[in-house]
C-alpha cells in the first residue's frame, strides 16, 4: 500500500489506512467496502426517515388509517437488506478464507508467550544450540510468511500487530497459531488487546521487518553468547545485576537464569524497553530501574533502591549487553 511508518509518524496502529502484508490487506479492503456500504445504508435510511418526518400529508379526516397499509415497506426494505447482507456475508467468508492460511509455506516459526505485562519471543531451530530468546521485539524477514505460535504464561492476552494481521488470543493451556507477513521493511507496533490486568495499557511490542540479509545478521548476533568485556565498571555492575536482578532476568552465558522477566542477553540491540513503554536509552534504563512502579504502576518489576554508585555500575554493565 504505502511505505512503512517511520518512527516519528503517529497512529502506528492505524490498520484502516495502512496495511503491509497479505494477512491484513484483504481485511483492509473488506473494511472499506463494509464501511462504505454502512455509510450508504445509513444515508438511505436517514433520508427515508427525514422524508417520513417532513413529507406532506392529506388532511386529517379524523379517522385513523388502516393498520394493514404500508406492509410493502417491510417487504421491500427487508428484501433488499437480506440480499445485501447475504452478499456481504459471502464477501466476508471469501476474505476469511484468503487470510486463514498463508499463500506459501511459512519461512520461519517463532513462539510468542504473553506474560504480565511483556512478551517473550522464542526462535527455535532444529539444532537446539541455535535457539535463542528475546523479549518485546520480533524480527522477521521481509516478504515471507511467518508462523507465530501463541502461548500465555499467566492470564489471557491477545497478540495484535494490526497493520500486519488481525489479533489472536493467547490462552493458558492452549497454543494458538497465526501468521503474518510484512512486505515492506519497517517497524510495526503491536499491542495486547485482551484486558489482562493492571498494566494492560503498557503491553506493547514491535515487529521489525528486515530484508533477508539483515535478518540473518540479526539472528546471528542474537545467537552469539554474551562476551563480557574486562572493564572493571562492568564487573561491579555485573555483581549488582546478579544480586538484584538475576532472580527474574536471565542473560545467556551467565549465572542469571531468572525466568519471570524478559531475557536481557542482547538488551542493547532493542529499540524499546518496558514492553514498548520507553525508548532504550541509558537514561531511560536507569529511570526504569529506579522508578518502574511510577512508570508502570503494578508491574512485576519493582522500583529498585540502589545507591548512585550501584546504579552507575549497573547501567554500565547493561550497556555492555550488545
Amino acid at each position, binding site marked *: 500500500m504505502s511505505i512503512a511508518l517511520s518512527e516519528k509518524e503517529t497512529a502506528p496502529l492505524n490498520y484502516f489506512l495502512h496495511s503491509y502484508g497479505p494477512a491484513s490487506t484483504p481485511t483492509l479492503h473488506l*473494511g472499506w467496502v463494509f464501511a462504505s456500504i454502512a455509510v450508504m445504508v445509513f444515508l438511505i435510511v436517514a433520508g*427515508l426517515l427525514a422524508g417520513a418526518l417532513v413529507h406532506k400529508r392529506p388532511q386529517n379526516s379524523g379517522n385513523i388509517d388502516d393498520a394493514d*397499509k404500508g406492509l410493502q415497506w417491510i417487504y421491500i426494505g427487508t428484501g433488499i437488506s437480506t440480499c445485501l447482507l447475504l452478499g456481504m456475508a459471502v464477501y466476508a467468508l471469501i*476474505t476469511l478464507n484468503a487470510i486463514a492460511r498463508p499463500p506459501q509455506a511459512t519461512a520461519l516459526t517463532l513462539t510468542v508467550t504473553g506474560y504480565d505485562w511483556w512478551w517473550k519471543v522464542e526462535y527455535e531451530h532444529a539444532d537446539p544450540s541455535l535457539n535463542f530468546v528475546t523479549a518485546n521485539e520480533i524480527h522477521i524477514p521481509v516478504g515471507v510468511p511467518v508462523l507465530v505460535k501463541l502461548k500465555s504464561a499467566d492470564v489471557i492476552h491477545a497478540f495484535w500487530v494490526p497493520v500486519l494481521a488481525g489479533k489472536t488470543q493467547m490462552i493458558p493451556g492452549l497454543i494458538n497459531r497465526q501468521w503474518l507477513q510484512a512486505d515492506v521493511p519497517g517497524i510495526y507496533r503491536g499491542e495486547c488487546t*485482551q484486558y489482562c490486568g493492571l498494566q*494492560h495499557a503498557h503491553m506493547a511490542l514491535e515487529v521489525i521487518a528486515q530484508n533477508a540479509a539483515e535478518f540473518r545478521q540479526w539472528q546471528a548476533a542474537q545467537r552469539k553468547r554474551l562476551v563480557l568485556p574486562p572493564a572493571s565498571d562492568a564487573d561491579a555492575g555485573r555483581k549488582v545485576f546478579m544480586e538484584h536482578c538475576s532472580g527474574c532476568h536471565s542473560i545467556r552465558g551467565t549465572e542469571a537464569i531468572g525466568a519471570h522477566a524478559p531475557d536481557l542477553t542482547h538488551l542493547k540491540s532493542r529499540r524499546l524497553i518496558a514492553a514498548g513503554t520507553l525508548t532504550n536509552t541509558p537514561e531511560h534504563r536507569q529511570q526504569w530501574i529506579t522508578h518502574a512502579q511510577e512508570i508502570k504502576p*503494578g508491574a512485576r518489576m519493582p522500583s529498585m533502591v540502589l545507591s548512585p554508585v550501584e546504579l552507575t555500575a549497573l547501567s554500565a554493565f547493561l550497556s555492555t549487553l550488545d
Partner: protein
Amino acid sequence: MTDSTDSPLIRVPEMGRAPLGSDAEIRLAGLWETEPGWRGRLSTVDHKTIGLRYLVTAFLFLLLGGVEALIMRLQLAQPDQTLLTPEQYNQLFTMHGVTMIFLYALPVLSGFSNYLWPLMLGSRDMAFPRLNALSYWLFLFSGLFLYASFPIGEAPNGGWFNYVPMTDRLYDTGPNIDVYALGMVLLGISTTVGSINFIVTLFRLRAPGMSIDRVPILVWGTLTASVANVFAVPVVSLAFFMLWLDRQFGTHFFDVVNGGKPMLWQHLFWMFGHPWVYVVVLPAMGIVSDALPTFCRRPLVGYAPVALSAMATMLLGFGVWIHHMFATGLPTLALSFFGATSMVISIPSAVAVFAWIATIWLGRPVFNTPFLFFAGFVLLFVIGGLSGVMTAAVPLDFQLNETYFVVAHLHYVLLGINVFPVVGGIYYWFPKFFGRMFNETLGKWSFWVMFIGFNAGFFPMHIAGLLGMPRRIYTYAPNMGWNTVNLITTAGSFVFALGLLLFLINVLVSLRRGAPAAENPWQAPTLEWAVPSPPPAYNFAVIPIVASRHPLWEDWLDEGYGRSSLETGYLLMEGRETLGTTPLDARPDVILKMPEDSYAPFFLGLFSSLIFAGLLLQAWDFAVLMIMASGLSLIAWLWPSKALAQRVSAVKPDKGVAHV
C-alpha cells in the same frame, strides 16, 4: 381449568359497572389499597409501586454508572493522564459495565413491565404479586451488595466479562471477584423469578378477548426477553457459582494447572451474554413499537412481522455467542458459521426499522418530546446495527474486536436502543405514572442535548477504534493519534450527561408543578390509558372485555372492528381477585385470588441476601443462620391463607364469556 359444574366453588362472576365513587368502587379501593406508612412500604405487592421502585432504583444506578463513566472519560481525555491509578480505572470500568448492564438496563425495563403490563393487559396485578416484590428486593439488595465493595476499595476489577484465569484466586486475591460472582448469583434469582412472573402474566392474565395477536408489541418484546432470561440466566449463574467454588474451595473448573479450561468460562459467559444483549433491547424496541404509533396517529405498520422479528431475533441470539470469541483460535469453519449467523441476525432488525419508518411515513406525526426520542432512537439503532454487521464479519472482527470500535458499537446498541426508548417511554407514560404532565419545552431541550451529546461522545469512538485504540487501557501515549478523538469523546459524554440531567430536572419539577393529566392525554390506543392517571390501586374497576388491538381507537378506526367494553365488565370484588384467561385466545377461565400484602417477600429477600453476605465474608455460621431465617420467611410466605382458599373457582367456558 376444565369445566367443573358440580364443584361447589364454581362461581360465575358478576358483570356490571363500578364508576368512581360508587359503592362497588369504594369496596374495591378498600380491598386493594396498601396500608400507609412504612409497614405498607415494606409489605406492598402492588405492581405499580414495585414498577416505580424498579424505575427509580435503576435510574439511580444509571447515575452511578454514568458518574463512573465521566470519571473514566476525564482520565482518557488526554494522553498520560494520572487522575486515576490503573487499579481504580479497572474497578471503574468493571463496575460501569456491571452497573449499566445488570443494574440499569434490565431492571429499568422490568420497571416498565411491572408497572404497565397488568394495565396494558386489563388485569389487576401480576400473576404472582409477592414473587414480584421478592424480585425487586433481591435486585435492590444485590445492587447494594455489589456497591458495598466500593467503600472498601475492593470493587470487582476483572471487567464485566470477568475472564478467567485473571479472575482466579491465583491472580486476583482480594474479595473483588467474589463480590461479583456472588452478587450475580443473587441477582440471577431476582431476574429468573421476575421473568417467570412476566411469562405467566402474559399467558394467563389478559383481559377477555385480548387474544395473543392483540397484545401490545411491548408485551411481545418482554415476553421473548423473559423466555430468554429463563434459559440464559441459569447458565451465567452456574458459571459464576463454579468460579466461586474455584476461588473458595479450590475446585478446578477453570484452573489450567489442574486440567481446568479457561475457554469454558468464555463459552458459558457468552452463551448467556449474547442473548442478554437482546434481553435488554427487545423490550425497549417494544416501547418504541407501541408508543411511536400513538404519535403518528395510526397503528404500527406490520404488527405481526414486528412481533415475529422479536422472536426471531431472540432465537438467533442464542446461536451467535461465538462472535464474542472470534479471536480465540477457533477453526475457520466454526468462524464462518457463526459469522454468517451474526450477519443474518440483523434481518429481523431491518423488519422493525422499516416498520417504524413506514409508520411515520403513513401517519401524521405529532412532534412531542416522546416522539423525538423514538425517532432519534431509530437513527441510533441503524448506526448500531450497521457497526454490528461490520463486527460480524470475521476477518474485520479480528481487527475491530477489543478496540474502541466495539465500545462505540455497543454504546450505540445499548445506550441508543435502551436509554433513548426508556427516557422517551418515561416521558410518554409520565402522565400515567404521576397524574401530571411534564414540561414540554424542557423535554425537547433534554432530547436535543442528549442526542447531540450522545453522537459527539460515541461516534468518535468508532474512529479511535479504527486508529487501533484498544479497549480497557487506563492511559495511552501521546503519539498514537488518539488525542483528538478522545478529547471530543470526553466533551460529548459531558454534554450527554447534561441532557440526562435536564431530563431528571424535568421529572422532578413536573412531579410538583406539572399540569394535571387526563386519562389519555396522547389519545393513545392501549388499555392503560383507559384508567385514571395515576391509576387506582385496583387498576380496573371492572375487568374490561377487549375486541381489538386498539381498544381506545375503535371509534376512529375504519368500520369492521369490534367494540371493546371498557365500562361494563367483570366486577370481581369478593376479595382481591382478577380474571385468568386461556393462554392463546383469552377466554375467561378462572377467578384468581390475589394475595394480600405481605412482609414475607421483603424478609425472604433480606435474609437470602444476607446468606450471600455471609458466604462472601466466609462467616459460615452466619450464612447457616440466614438460611434458616430464609426458610422461616418462606414458611410464612406459603402459610395457607383463607383469602386464597378459593383457588379453583372457575367460569364455565361456554356460559362465562360475555361476547359483547
